[in-house]
């Protein structure tokens, strides 16, 4: 049966290649997608088989080993098919070709909508995913669900926190800011105290900016089927641009691109004093910023209004089952094991940050002392942040493209006199144009 579907798929693929109906091809086996049931998953585990998993998440290695031990009949091949965009490209190509599609694929939350919209990933609800809502914190769960379907299971989450170099703040006697206004003040003081120090490094990153807007209560994207609205003129977006414009105007940001060796260098030598990022960041600190062990701490994200506790998600990804997988039931079994079952514990032990409420509230988790953060129980900060994430945020169904042109538009505001607000307008326009070209109805 599986075999026949495969052949059918391949036949369709030939037709697709002829007409290159890439998107249409992705949905070639729609009808089969709804076939699954929890019983199928049980049966698949009993029967065993082979799975190919595309993921760059390092902690999955252990999960695969444990899974294979528990289910000896299942053989899982874990493939790092590239990080983020590289992997999406590969997945897209494989889906278009109808060949070489993995059984499980890691997809970041912001990109998931795109794959769900083109039906490249299967709806996991029939396999039992619909019963897992309670297991996850609201932010990640809402990120994997749309139009009544569950398109993946949350693997990790990135409730935001402010990481700061305590040594630098102490040295200059500066308070850790609790609001973004205070953040701007701290930036000024830091620069005054030491002209080589900047409060943070930022060269314009779509994911970061949208997270700030999210925290500030802005909801620039509304998606209802193929009707899309993009609007960066709400209060939340305005608050963010006003604050960031100050930082830019007064040269308070280090123009260092994130994740480069230069950036790691700046985090290590104290010239970049803070970093607002998701709770997955500690692992990166530990491996990339070894030299500054003990200097850094985690604090709640500064607030847009004093006394608030708003937070947002930054980053994080899910495991999905591509619609063209030849063994979706077994693929789901692995996904559930890794993201809702024993796999979660294995991954936590290796430093991942969970999306599951049970783990976020467990005493052991909260009591973990981070040597890197000078013994701080940083998970308390992160878990608190996770609780405060508003869950009504949504990304565009083509956010990968939109983010790719962020620096074409908003980026100019970081290197020229163009106002940030003007940049956002240009981004909005370009995103809308693309959406309309692709058959959505944007801002109409």
């Amino acid at each position, binding site marked *: 049966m599986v075999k026949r579907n495969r052949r059918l798929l391949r036949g369709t693929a030939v037709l697709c290649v002829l*007409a*290159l*109906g*890439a*998107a*249409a091809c992705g949905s070639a086996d729609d009808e089969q997608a709804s076939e699954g049931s929890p019983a199928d998953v049980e049966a698949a585990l009993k029967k065993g088989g082979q799975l190919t998993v595309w993921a760059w998440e390092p902690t999955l290695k252990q999960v695969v080993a444990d899974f294979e031990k528990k289910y000896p009949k299942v053989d899982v091949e874990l493939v790092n098919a590239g990080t983020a*965009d590289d992997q999406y*490209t590969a997945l*897209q190509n494989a889906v278009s070709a109808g060949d070489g599609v993995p059984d499980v694929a890691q997809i970041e939350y912001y990109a998931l909508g*795109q794959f769900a*919209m*083109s039906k490249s990933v299967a709806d996991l609800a029939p396999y039992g995913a619909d019963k897992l809502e309670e297991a996850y914190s609201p932010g990640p769960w809402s990120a994997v669900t749309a139009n009544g379907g569950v398109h993946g299971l949350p693997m990790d989450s990135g409730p935001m926190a402010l990481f700061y170099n305590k040594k630098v703040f102490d040295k200059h006697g500066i308070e850790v800011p609790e609001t973004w206004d205070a953040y701007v003040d701290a930036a000024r003081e830091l620069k005054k105290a030491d002209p080589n120090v900047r409060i943070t490094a930022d*060269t*314009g990153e779509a994911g970061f900016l949208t997270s700030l807007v999210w925290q500030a209560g802005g909801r620039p994207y509304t998606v209802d089927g*193929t009707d899309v609205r993009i609007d960066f003129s709400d209060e939340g977006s305005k608050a963010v641009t006003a604050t960031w414009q100050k930082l830019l105007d007064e040269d308070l940001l*280090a*123009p*260092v*691109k994130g994740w*480069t*060796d*230069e950036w790691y*260098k*700046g985090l290590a030598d104290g*010239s970049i004093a803070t970093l607002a990022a998701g709770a997955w960041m500690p692992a990166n600190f530990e491996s990339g910023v070894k030299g500054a062990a003990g200097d850094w701490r985690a604090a709640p994200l500064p607030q847009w209004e004093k006394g608030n506790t708003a937070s947002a998600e930054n980053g994080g990804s899910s495991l999905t089952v591509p619609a063209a997988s030849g063994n979706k039931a077994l693929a789901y079994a692995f996904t559930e094991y890794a993201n809702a079952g024993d796999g979660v514990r294995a991954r936590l032990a290796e430093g991942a940050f969970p999306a599951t409420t049970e783990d976020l509230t467990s005493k052991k988790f909260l009591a973990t002392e981070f040597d890197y953060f000078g013994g701080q129980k940083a998970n308390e900060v992160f878990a608190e942040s996770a609780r405060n994430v508003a869950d009504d945020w949504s990304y565009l*169904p*083509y956010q*990968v*493209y939109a983010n*790719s*042109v962020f*620096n*074409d538009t908003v*980026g*100019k505001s*970081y*290197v*020229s006199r163009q106002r940030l607000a003007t940049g956002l307008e240009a981004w909005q326009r370009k995103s809308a144009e*693309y959406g309309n*070209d*692709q*058959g*959505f109805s944007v801002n109409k």
Partner: protein
Amino acid sequence: MTALSPPGAAERPALLARRPRDRRRWAGWGFIGPFLAVFGLVFLAPIGYSLYLSLFRDQIIGGTTFVGLENYGDALADPQFWEGLGRVTAFLAVQVPVMLGIALLVALALDSGRLYGKGFFRISIFLPYAVPAVVATLMWGFLYSTRFGLVANIDDALGVTLPDPLSPDLALASIGNIVTWEFTGYNMLIFYSALRVVPQSLYEAAEIDGAGQLRVVRSIKLPAIRGALVIATIFSIIGSFQLFNEPSILQKLAPNAITTYFTPNLYTYELSFAGRQQNYAATVAIIMGLITMVIAYVVQLRGMRKDV
């Protein structure tokens, strides 16, 4: 259309075919057949496929529709395409002469026999060609850095503030520098080798005429290697119009200065991957291919006809 034939070889094969025999005529195809077969598979078939694709449009919502030549109209009216084309044209006008100029001067210097340690020069200047792109990112990321890198060190040492090499104004020049770094040695070697086989008789004649060193260069050496110069120019033109690796490397460090449509080739990459507009990307690529071909062809004609 006349063939683009290599310099110096243009007339020769025609001469050997004085008495063409059928068997031998087709034996030529036998020898070039394997090359053409693979070439057809990895170049011509994808290009043919792209031509076909360029007549369609594919949407996330709505699927694939036949649109005729609409994509071509769109591309010709696309300011981002023209901006990229303008940029590589400027690049071509400045970087290629500089690079080939330096390569030629070094080749002449090596050839003059007046250098100490010639062998060392030759191999060392050629080495950058062997460095993979990933490595070049790290190296140039460091060298261009105004905070920790060489630029920062120069600033500190001299008490000046050099402009950021990766700012929007200077990014193209910085890319030009990397390309020059990578390919000067490569071109130098082609020129140098061509110079090594200039017939001795020509020099002797010049000596009898009492020609000076510069005169020898101008009236003997340069004309003698014109073929190598023309082919190096043609490949450099193609390289400039297809500029991709270096800007895409530096884009990771300076995304605000190097846009996704910085060069036409980056643009097609963005269109076909992030934008999933394979059809439109194919259209842009075909237009670029045509433009490049026409220019390469003109250069070849001019370079070859100007007899000395």
